[in-house]
């Protein structure tokens, strides 16, 4: 299953920038387009997934790992298998974001927002591909460490089981942060019955680092 970055939604990019609907001058629109174009050109998305059977106690068979927390247990209640997934825009994008922060901060915030929209697109595409591949079985929404009551420290288990650093080059810091920043790991349940949709929440969002909505005490409404 190939990583696919098929587009960057302008609406998403603007949301991540905390846009409140004032008129956008021509030169700012051009900056936005240029930023989105640059991410589309420079990103080298990579994805990785693996299927595990889910044991009677909720553990992933043969791994010694049981996903922690009530929320994930609820999500997986009807599932007999679990997919672990990881996706990233790659270090190329990370280096671009960091370098631009040193030279042109206006461009940097736009690139950052566009990259957040891009990694969401890559994850959505992977999930769509998985849903197709597993049909007629049904998939749950994706659920990431840090969301709900699942601690961020669970990242380490996902990294170990998927061999994420070696396979797609994401690095995990001791405090549980991923580099490249525009990376996502998640669990997806597989079952025979359709699953209700669930919110993924701000903690799981690639933009949570600097989301204006969040700091304003609201949310973008997407998740």
């Amino acid at each position, binding site marked *: *299953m190939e990583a696919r970055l098929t587009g960057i939604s302008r609406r998403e990019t603007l949301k991540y*920038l*905390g*846009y*409140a*609907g*004032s008129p956008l*001058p021509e*030169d*700012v629109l051009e*900056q*936005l387009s240029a930023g989105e174009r640059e991410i589309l050109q420079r990103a080298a998305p990579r994805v*990785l997934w*693996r*299927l595990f059977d889910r044991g009677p106690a909720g553990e992933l068979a*043969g*791994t*010694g*790992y049981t996903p922690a927390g009530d929320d994930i247990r609820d999500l997986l209640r009807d599932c007999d298998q679990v997919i672990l997934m990881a996706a990233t825009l*790659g*270090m*190329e994008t*990370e*280096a671009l*974001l*960091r*370098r631009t*922060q*040193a*030279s*042109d*901060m*206006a461009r*940097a*915030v*736009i690139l*950052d927002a566009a990259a957040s929209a891009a990694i969401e697109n890559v994850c959505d595409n992977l999930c769509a591909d998985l849903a197709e591949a597993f049909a007629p079985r049904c998939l749950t929404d994706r659920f990431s460490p*840090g969301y709900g009551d699942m601690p*961020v420290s669970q990242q380490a288990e996902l990294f*170990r089981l998927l061999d994420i*650093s*070696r396979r*797609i*080059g994401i*690095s995990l*810091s001791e*405090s*549980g*942060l991923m*580099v490249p*920043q525009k990376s996502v790991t998640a669990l997806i349940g597989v079952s025979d019955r359709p699953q209700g949709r669930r919110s993924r929440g701000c903690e799981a969002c690639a933009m*949570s*680092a*600097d*989301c*204006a909505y*969040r*700091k*304003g*005490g609201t949310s973008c409404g997407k998740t």
Partner: protein
Amino acid sequence: MEKHELIILDGAMGTMLQAAGLPVGQIPELWNCTQPETVAAVHRQYVEAGSRVLYANTFGVNRFKAAGCGRSVAELVEGGVRCARMAADGRDVKVALDIGPLGQLLEPLGTLRFEEAYDAFREILVSGERAGADLVIIETMSDLYEVKAAVLAAKENTALPVWVTMTFEASGRTFLGTTVPAMGLTLSGLGVDAMGFNCSLGPEKLLPLAEELSRWTDRPLILKPNAGLPDPATGAYSMTAEDFARKLAPAQELGVSIFGGCCGTTPAFIRALSGSLKAASAPRRAADRHGVCSAARTASFDGVRVIGERINPTGKKRFQQALREADIDCIAALGIEQQDAGAEILDVNVGLPGIDEPAMMRRVVKALQAVTDLPLQIDSSDPAAIEAGLRAVNGKAIVNSVNGKPEVLAAVLPLCKKYGAAVVGLCMDQDGIPQDWQGRCRIAERILDAALSYGIPREDVLIDCLTLTVSAQQEQAAHTLRAVRYVTEELGLRTVLGVSNISFGLPAREQITLSFLTQALHAGLALPILNPNQAATMDAVAAYRVLSGQDRDAEAYIRRFASVPAQERTTAAPGAGMSIKDAIMRGLRQETKGLTGQALEQMSEMDVVDRLLIPALDAVGESYERQEIFLPQLINAANAACEGFELVKERIAQRGGASVSKGKIVLATVRGDIHDIGKNIVRVVLENYGYTVVDLGRDVPAEKVVEAVIRENVRLVGLSALMTTTVASMAETIAAIRESGHDCRIMVGGAVLTPDYAAQIGADYYARDAKQSADIAKQVLG
């Protein structure tokens, strides 16, 4: 070991141990101490299958990954080497100390410092040699900088041969962006004994990479691929041992001589290799590509390469001031600017009386590597500064320079050899600069002989025939050009030349400089050192590349001139009737600069700042708060204002005054947090309000913040934290600052913080966004 003799390595270890009952989740190296016989038994299976080099079970042993497992690094390493020795002894089998990635990302993308990585590797290496390893294999690496730390640690602390294999994607780059040429050039230079690829891809996909690598190094080549890719549904590798061996066989025709297997391989794969590979690989062709590089970009020596000269304090007041104030961002910006203008190598000179040059060189090299990917030229006459620069460089650098003086050659050439750098030799010696071309060429020959005697390859010797000022010594221009031709054609060496000095003291300097540059290029000049920001000079280089055939079908030339806008904006003509405030509100940089220049003719610098620039920024801030503009526009405006501030700073530097600042603020993203775009936005905005920001970066421990707060004697500190887990270290940092007794205000910000939470952990102010942090600064500092 014979260069082309076939050497068979072993296959995977971790999966073999799991098959032998290793509990999931336990680090496999623990068995080196608790079940040595089981580990040795796996090694024996590989020996039986034909392995002549066993990788000790030490891949994951380092102070980061093995922390908390109950055994020390030394115990695990010594146990691992002992297990392999048990299987090897009495046979013609060598034991390699196996070193994998540390698992922590190095600077600049990560936060692990190069020097810390070196220490972590040294610890493993010293134990490994003591335990009896025959060689060192550094493998599965994707960061060339991490490899360099490991190689230097091996060379400086052991006498063992060093092999390196890195992990590439089919794109020809590692995850960190290291290219095959950069790997070949850098590791050959560092004196690695064999190199190649492991893991990542199946055998057939590694063949093109091996062919490319063979053009950049003469060292023996290694391939240790995976058994294809694992099936996501089962985790199993599907390639058969026979298929694996058959697909690797063509590599012998490329001259690859060292083979093994990585993930998914077993003793059966090694047996298949032993049975099917020929006893000797085809002879290697000599490497035919040369050059210098960063990890991600190579400036090959097969055409004209422009060296940017701007990072140099000579005659530049503003740059000198930046050096004295350790304004590293200002220096790094010169790197970005030159790369954008077309420089392919950056000269780095930070020599200034009163500056700790080695320390500054290390800092500037690292700062440049964070913002550009150009190869660097370390420009100094101080061997300690040269070594500090060469050590910090990620890639293969140039040293600028040596000359014909024996003591200079003896001090600098060993450094070039050790770190694998190319070197510029100036055609002068203890008797000065010879006044004829023959004299200069004789010195060039002497420098070449000296370099060769130290083992520096011929193609890494670059000669500077020296440009003298034509207004003072008119006949010298012809001698310089003649010397360039001789060194290029007769000695077969590449030449370097700083060109702009030629026109000093004459009117319309550009005419002389351009004409000289063009003649020098036609005489063979390969590496002109110049100011790439002067478009006419770069135009001349572009034209030369067409005429010399380097720019095939004039593609680059056409691209260069197709993109010139019909009417370029100039600083001379700001929009009629536009005020500085309008220009800043609309984010127009050139206009702001032009208008500031006009204002400075009538007003003092401080008046321009206080009466024009700051009020304009205040208006922008209000507009942002009313949500009439959003974040990119706020920053556009701040950047435009920055142009005005820069002009003010230049004026003040020109008359030798201290820099204008409204006060100093320390900023840091706290320990554990590595995502710092929010803090960086705050920095840009504060700087553009005229404050001096001491940015400590990210993942900053509390004691470093305290130390900086006291050293800089600041009255305001800004801290950012992104995650709930790191707000704890923010609280610790605040407590540490309070405990130090230093009187200052603390403002905090970050996604998970709220005003209540900020008060709870003892902060004085909560800053919701960059605009609010500027308001707080104004309140505290004025």
